[in-house]
């Protein structure tokens, strides 16, 4: 038991877990965007759920326990249910395999390479300041939210309310 604990805190297991979760995340993400077997949005949605779950694993590794929970609750729970609900509602057939447009492909590649360029460029300028040493974040995070970030917090809640009203209005049958 002691040995296992050491193994975990020693970082080797954490490293392994990172690779596992990262690989899982990316693999599921690929399957969301480009699934060679199915074009159905349902499949994509299901893989998105997997992506999100594996991402919350990454969050755990980063000691963001609260966020990991929220991620699963909000994303994998609420948001994805909404997605699936809409997909079912619209009763979408499996997407036909249209030809990939050359323009789309080119645009995608160019965009990605641009992002990659920016990424590499900015990586160079990153300097690590300290070793990660935060513990018991959830309590601190809560305190931060309700002290320093009270105003944004309230605004966000209003935003949610507005979004709710907006959605009700939008989904009324007759849009004027």
């Amino acid at each position, binding site marked *: 038991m002691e040995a296992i604990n050491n193994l975990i805190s020693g970082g080797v297991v954490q490293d392994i877990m990172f690779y596992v979760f990262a690989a899982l995340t990316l693999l599921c993400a690929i399957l969301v965007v480009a699934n060679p077997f199915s074009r159905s949005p349902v499949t994509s949605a299901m893989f998105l759920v997997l992506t999100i779950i594996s991402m919350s694993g990454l969050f755990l590794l980063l000691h963001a326990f609260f966020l990991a929970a*929220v991620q699963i609750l909000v994303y994998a729970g609420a948001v994805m249910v909404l997605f699936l609900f809409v997909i079912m509602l619209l009763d979408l057939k499996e997407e036909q395999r249209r030809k990939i447009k050359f323009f789309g492909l080119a645009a995608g590649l160019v965009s990605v390479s641009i992002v990659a360029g920016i990424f590499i460029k900015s990586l160079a300028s990153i300097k690590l300041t300290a070793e990660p040493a935060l513990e018991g974040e959830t309590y601190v995070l809560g305190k931060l939210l309700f002290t320093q970030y009270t105003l944004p917090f309230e605004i966000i809640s209003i935003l949610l309310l507005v979004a709710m009203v907006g959605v009700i209005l939008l989904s009324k049958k007759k849009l004027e």
Partner: protein
Amino acid sequence: MHVSLHHYLFVSFMLFSLGLLGVIMRRNLLVIYMSLELMLNAANLALVSFSRFNNKLDGQVLVFFIITVAAAEVAVGLALIVALFRKRQSAHVEDLTSMKL
């Protein structure tokens, strides 16, 4: 090799690129929307990892907000898609173009 910030950032970048590719190349509105979520999550991951390696919690607060906004956005966006679908009977991007060259 010890896992460092760069590893997380690389994953975040990959996620983001995948999302971007999806947005630009896929034609189904819903899938595009999911790709957008991917991109948002990529950003979240980057923020959380920055927060972790900088010993500051502000990044996590931001992620918290992003998740909330994302929830609201998904709700509104999906409602729009539904409304659009009712009008056009399609969730296909190319069918939605109405401008003429």
